[in-house]
């Protein structure tokens, strides 16, 4: 018998009304119209769970840890009632050959019908043996499981871009998934880690609407990655007003001024941190006083110090403007706003170019 989330919730005494409320909230958190809520409710009522195989390459497991932090939906409901997480070495009961048997069975039983979730990435040096699973290179396992998957979820910056082990000089030659798997749709969900509700939001979207989310040209879901942290940052008025933190724990830091001068990468980072925020919406890096380090951007480890001001906009005079304005008067607000407009235009232009940027493999 196929158990649906709706069945489960109702048997647990959760009212139909509450279930519909959950659907409405889910729709809202995805930025969808309230009409979509009824579609979600229908999906919860009627569908068996999609098998998901979650593989781990070179990584730090922060994506798994983030995933289990999801507040809506709760991860227990995702695992018990939305998807069938048949393989995930971080939490699965089985080990050794009993674990490996699940992979073979899934390929056969659910050929073309399962989702492959990739955390981490494969190293290519030393014949792939810098990451060994079951006595074999991880890249072999990845290729085998990708061959029969419907689609691939590239969790986090490791699978999407390469992340820390691929930072220069990339000693193991770790590469993102799209550089080794070319014949499957790949949904990149970058971030180190990605926001929990973004991860479960992507999974829920696929389960609910039975299609992959709209992606930008770099392969990220538009619904979560189409705007910069800076675009929706609650400290943005301070940027526009030319009010900046000048040193850690100074008066301006205590007043919650803009962290641009402390190296904040919010103006060039596409993510939902300033809107969805972290851990059930409690905070996000800027709100807690540290600049954004740009962890969802390709190659963010190699863009200079996290405390360097965004250097790529120096040539356009932005830093100069910000410096002049810093800690001073309302008279310079206009300049700041003008400066900001230039910054945005530059970044938009850069982004258009960026969308056609070479892969990290080509860069190397």
């Amino acid at each position, binding site marked *: *018998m196929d*158990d649906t989330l709706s*069945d489960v919730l109702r048997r647990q005494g959760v009212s139909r009304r509450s279930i519909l409320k959950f659907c409405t909230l889910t729709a809202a958190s995805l930025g969808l119209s309230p009409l979509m809520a009824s579609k979600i409710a229908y999906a919860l009522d009627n569908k068996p*769970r999609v098998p998901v195989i979650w593989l781990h390459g*070179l*990584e*730090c*497991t*922060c994506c*798994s840890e983030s995933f*289990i*932090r999801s*507040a809506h939906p709760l991860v227990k409901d995702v695992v*018990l009632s939305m998807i069938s997480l*048949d393989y995930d070495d*971080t*939490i*699965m*009961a*089985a*080990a*050794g050959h*009993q*674990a490996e048997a699940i992979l073979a069975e899934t390929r056969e039983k659910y050929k073309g019908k399962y989702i492959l979730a990739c955390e981490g990435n494969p190293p290519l040096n*030393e014949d792939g043996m810098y*990451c*060994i699973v079951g*006595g074999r*290179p*991880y890249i072999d396992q990845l290729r085998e499981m990708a061959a029969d998957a419907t689609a691939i979820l590239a969790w986090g910056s490791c699978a999407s871009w390469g992340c*820390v*082990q691929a930072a*220069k*000089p*990339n*000693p*193991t030659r770790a590469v993102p998934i799209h550089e080794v798997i070319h014949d499957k749709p790949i949904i990149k969900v970058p971030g*180190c880690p990605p926001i929990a509700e973004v991860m479960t939001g992507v999974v829920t979207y696929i389960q609910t609407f039975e299609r992959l989310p709209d992606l930008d040209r770099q392969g990220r879901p538009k619904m979560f990655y189409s705007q910069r942290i800076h675009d929706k940052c609650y*400290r943005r008025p301070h940027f526009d007003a030319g009010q900046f933190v000048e*040193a*850690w*724990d100074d008066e301006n*830091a*205590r*007043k*919650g001024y803009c962290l641009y001068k402390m190296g904040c990468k919010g103006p060039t980072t596409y993510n939902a*941190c300033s809107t969805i925020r*972290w851990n*059930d919406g*409690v905070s*996000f*890096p*800027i709100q*807690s*006083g*540290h600049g954004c380090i740009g962890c969802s951007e390709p190659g963010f*480890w190699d863009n200079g*110090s*996290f405390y360097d001001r965004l250097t790529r906009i120096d040539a356009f005079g932005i830093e100069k403007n910000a410096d002049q304005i810093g800690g001073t008067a309302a008279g310079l607000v206009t300049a700041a706003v003008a400066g900001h407009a230039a910054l945005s235009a530059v970044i938009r232009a850069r982004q258009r170019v960026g969308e056609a940027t070479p892969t990290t493999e080509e860069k*190397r």
Partner: protein
Amino acid sequence: MATTPNGFNLDSGGKRIVVDPVTRIEGHLRVEVNVDDKNVIRNAVSTGTMWRGLEVILKGRDPRDAWAFTERICGVCTGVHALTSVRCVEDALGIKIPENANTIRNMMHLTLYVQDHLVHFYHLHALDWVDVVSALKADPKATSELAQKSSSWAKSSPGYFRDLQGRLKRFVESGQLGPFKNGYWGHAAYKLPPEANLMAVAHYLEALDFQKDIVKIQTILGGKNPHPNWLVGGVPCPINVDAVGAVGALNMERLNFISSVVDQSLEFVEQVYIADLMAIAPFYKDWLYGGGLSSKNLMAYGDFPEHANDAGSLMLPRGVILGGKLDAVQDVDLRDPAQIQEFVNHSWYKYADESKGLHPWDGVTEPNFTLGPKTRGTKTRIEAVDEDMKYSFVKAPRWRGNAVEVGPLARMVIAYAKGDPGVKELIDKTLKALDVPITALFSTLGRTAARGLECLWAAQKLRYMTDKLIASIKAGDTSTANTERWDPKSWPSSARGVGFCEAPRGALGHWITIENTKIANYQCVVPTTWNGSPRDPAGNIGAFEAALLDTPLADPDKPLEILRTIHSFDPCLACATHVIGPDGTERSRVTVR
């Protein structure tokens, strides 16, 4: 048969059993054992099977950025490398941090202890003791009675357990078992009655819900979790409880939020985690395998300075116990080249002279993936490794030549041996309640119990530190960062430093050398490198291998007992195997092929 210098008998005859992947851990680990004709383990081999090379990547970078790189060594024990890294850089540059920064760092670190220990027990370890399928046979009413007998936790009605069991039943009947697929259900080594199994499964799900709330303390103080933000010289979150802009800084609402999570954490740990441990342990009291090195050699660097910049005020003490001498705890000096050394003659790295160990400041690492002649299989399809030669990406660190065990058990025993009153009371009370002698601690179960007790200790200290922060603010101190040496122009042309911490999994150290404001060398020696170490030139075996020896397997095809003992260490392989050393020429050699 051979006896190792550290007193373990190894026999590599008999049948070889391989567990790969070892699941419910962080990273990639392989375990091979030889069993005799009675299925008792007589030889054990643990192999770290991943390598990322983070320290190569750190060379030439800004030392103030190192916390973010090293934090990405591990996302499970998130923040421990970041904390160790900022301490390491501050040590090198002589930076003193404000009192509040020390308190806030302690709060973030204690938060991790509570969350990480809880998740380890329920989500990485419990299924070694708890049979999920057996829970289907439980009587919800009897389960409720058991729950109410063992704890005052409110969620304990027969209806609660009946609903949970119903959900579990439908889940199993769906035929899609998800993470519970192919578990060793029905295995003879499971000893709990169905009711205890049902209670534990209920709490598995409750703990999954609750762990996400504990970390909100890190989110408030560090902006996100996993991987919160840290700062050389203090912490990035400013305090403002009075003035313009207080909303958005650490203010009254945020302090209340933290305080509320602390109280909930204390309640959950006392009424659920500890209560479950005490309810489950009696059924396994005669399964006292897995002690390994723990009754001989233990080590802790110590952590949680009560006062800023005062290594003498560590609330978890530092020390080494050798040969089981609890009355002679020795001191540890991380700077002494004769004390901590790493060996590689059984690791996939290369030294000029592999008979000797190297102190981390002098460390060399050049990857060298080679397999011995007795290896079965091929280079890219290994069936069995040759432990006489190189067989792991984990190095073999030793303290004055001795293999030691690190982690919660080591910390609790060292604190106990040094007479810490709080720890002593916790341990004595537990031993008395279970009616077991102190030697029962030196086992797989003891390791698991020590982690639970430490979780309670951490939740209590989290309350203490939160109150300390509030008292400090009340007394007028709102400083959170020292920026005197923030500017690299204020640094000496060369400097070196050590940072230490007790990660949830054990003693963690970082060693840095700074030349002309950039990182010249960075080296980490981490808990799972100690516990999961391969053999050394003298033939000493590490803690994982020692703990597996002499354990009988009920069914060698389903080696539940191996998982149970390995999991009791809470292995973290991404931590253990990231290591690489300082020589620039060797580095460039391995970059691109």
